[in-house]
């Protein structure tokens, strides 16, 4: 049983999306679509009982390692970590400012809960492989979750890392790929066609699970299946809507790497105060 219901998590995800919008409008630069699109996943990961962590003891030895490989998603990671109590929420507004621990792209251990330095794409997955290898070597039970973007799959290093993860049968590694079909220069299939990421990873000898990235139940089930797959690493292809929750941002590549202006943010926040289901929009006001 999960500690909280999906309804509660869905509401929390929308609250965190609002935090993200506020952080971004305040910072003036940053990435909007990915953090909003993956908010459901991040909320479930930290508040749905899927990983072990201790906010008051962030470097607890037996914690599960969460590696954000796609560093530009950091606003949602920061929002989730603050919500979980890793650091004060008041600090969120310092995103991208001089002297802030909330760097524009995360720096390892600068902030409690941030495991790796990321930004240059493809580097997190190799580090996640290194962590998973170490855990196996030491017979540790902790697991590694590595979150990646789909555009990130353009990087050659990523495929080197997959070969390595398969070679060492890293069943303690779960790779989550946000399949939102956009990257800075446009749709992924125009910029550099990725085709079936799941098919490619199957060929790389991964256990591959494709899920609706806004369906909490499906994501939770996939994460559970990863834990009981003992012979190979698991890749979860998370199909999401970039900019999810803010209609004018949804599925718009232009919103990959920009932030809302004040007027747009007001509109976004007002939209996010309404609860949405797959069936449509339901006002809670």
């Amino acid at each position: 049983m999960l500690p909280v219901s999906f309804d509660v998590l869905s509401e929390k995800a929308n609250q965190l999306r609002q935090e993200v919008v506020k952080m971004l409008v305040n910072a003036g630069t940053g990435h909007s679509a990915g953090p909003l699109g993956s908010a459901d996943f991040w909320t479930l990961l930290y508040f749905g009982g899927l990983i072990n962590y201790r906010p008051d003891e962030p470097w607890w030895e037996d914690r599960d390692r969460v590696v954000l490989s796609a560093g530009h998603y950091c606003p949602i990671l920061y929002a989730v970590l603050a919500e979980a109590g890793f650091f004060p929420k008041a600090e969120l507004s310092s995103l991208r400012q001089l002297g802030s621990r909330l760097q524009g792209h995360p720096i390892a251990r600068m902030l409690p809960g941030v495991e790796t330095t990321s930004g240059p794409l493809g580097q997190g997955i190799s580090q996640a492989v290194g962590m998973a290898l170490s855990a196996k070597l030491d017979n540790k039970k902790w697991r590694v979750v590595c979150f990646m973007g789909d555009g990130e799959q353009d990087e050659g290093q990523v495929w080197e890392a997959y070969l390595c993860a398969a070679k060492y049968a890293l069943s303690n590694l779960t790779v989550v790929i946000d399949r939102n079909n956009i990257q800075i220069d446009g749709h992924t299939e125009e910029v550099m066609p990725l085709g079936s990421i799941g098919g490619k990873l199957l060929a790389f000898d991964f256990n591959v699970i494709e899920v609706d990235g806004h369906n909490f139940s499906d994501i939770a089930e996939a994460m559970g299946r990863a834990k009981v797959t003992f012979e190979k690493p698991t890749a979860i292809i998370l199909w999401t809507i970039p900019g999810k929750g803010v209609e004018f941002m949804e599925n718009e590549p232009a919103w990959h790497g920009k932030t809302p202006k004040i007027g747009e943010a007001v509109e976004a926040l007002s939209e996010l105060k309404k609860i949405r289901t797959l069936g449509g929009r339901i006002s809670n006001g």
Partner: protein
Amino acid sequence: MVDGEMFLEVDLLKAEKKAMRDGYGEGLVEAGRRNPNVVALVADLMESTRTDLFRKEFPQRFFEMGISEQNMMGVAAGMAVSGKVPFVNSFACFSPGRNWEQLRISVCLSGNNVKVIGGHAGVGNGTDGGNQQMYEDIALARVLPNLTVVVPADYEQAKKMTLAIADFRGPVYMRMTKPPRAVVTTVGTPLTIGRAQVFREGKDVTVIACGAMVYEALLAAEELAPEVDVEVINVHTIKPLDKETIVRSVTKTKKVVVAEEHSIIGGLAGAVAELFAEERPTKMRRVGMRDRFGESGEPEELLTHFGMTKKEIIEKIKELI
């Protein structure tokens, strides 16, 4: 005169020739015995990098990463985060040549305790040709914050340096050349990371060298004595540079020749020139690769062809005297 406290080989011309990589391979096994967290990663160059010795004794702690230097560097960073002391092995032309960005982000910016071993640097891969020879690695490494850069002078020093960097907390780049070269240091020669060594005291001119060029510098000094009294400093740690020892020497001699099996741009000479420009402008000459790529040839003939021997050191000294 040769510094007695350095316990160098007395007869330079009879010095035994051994490869630095053998010293490294043996040192790594010893480091593995002393610390169970030491692990080795290699990108399909096990025998060349002498990590086969480590694999034989510690098969569980040895990781063959295939021909994927970028991933290897990142995996090492992830292992360092998890408490391991990873040694990353390849040729210098590939590591840090190909995976410099991973070194920059996953290792240096993150402050991860990874040891990067660049083998076959300089003319090392001689007959393989220009693309496998590496004359730019010290420059690439030296510019990275948090990275300590070391260049042992010979087999014996490579062995000691391996143990020293295994104990040292923080990212390190160690470069070595391939062919057997004269072993000038002995078991008794001290070694402290960050402290340059005056191998020979002199008052007329200072030769600052690293790697196998230290031997060439000592030969040059011997040949010019007693007419020219040459001081020879072994700068085995390029970064952090031992400013005190270097400035003290040139304050005395007022002339300096820098010799390295590396580009004359950005390496040891670059580091020294930066120091002198700010602290003590000094007449200086450089011996090294003169801003060009290598080409196929036996290492010894390449050193002669490209001008990285005692002959060029002597010529440069004479220019200054």
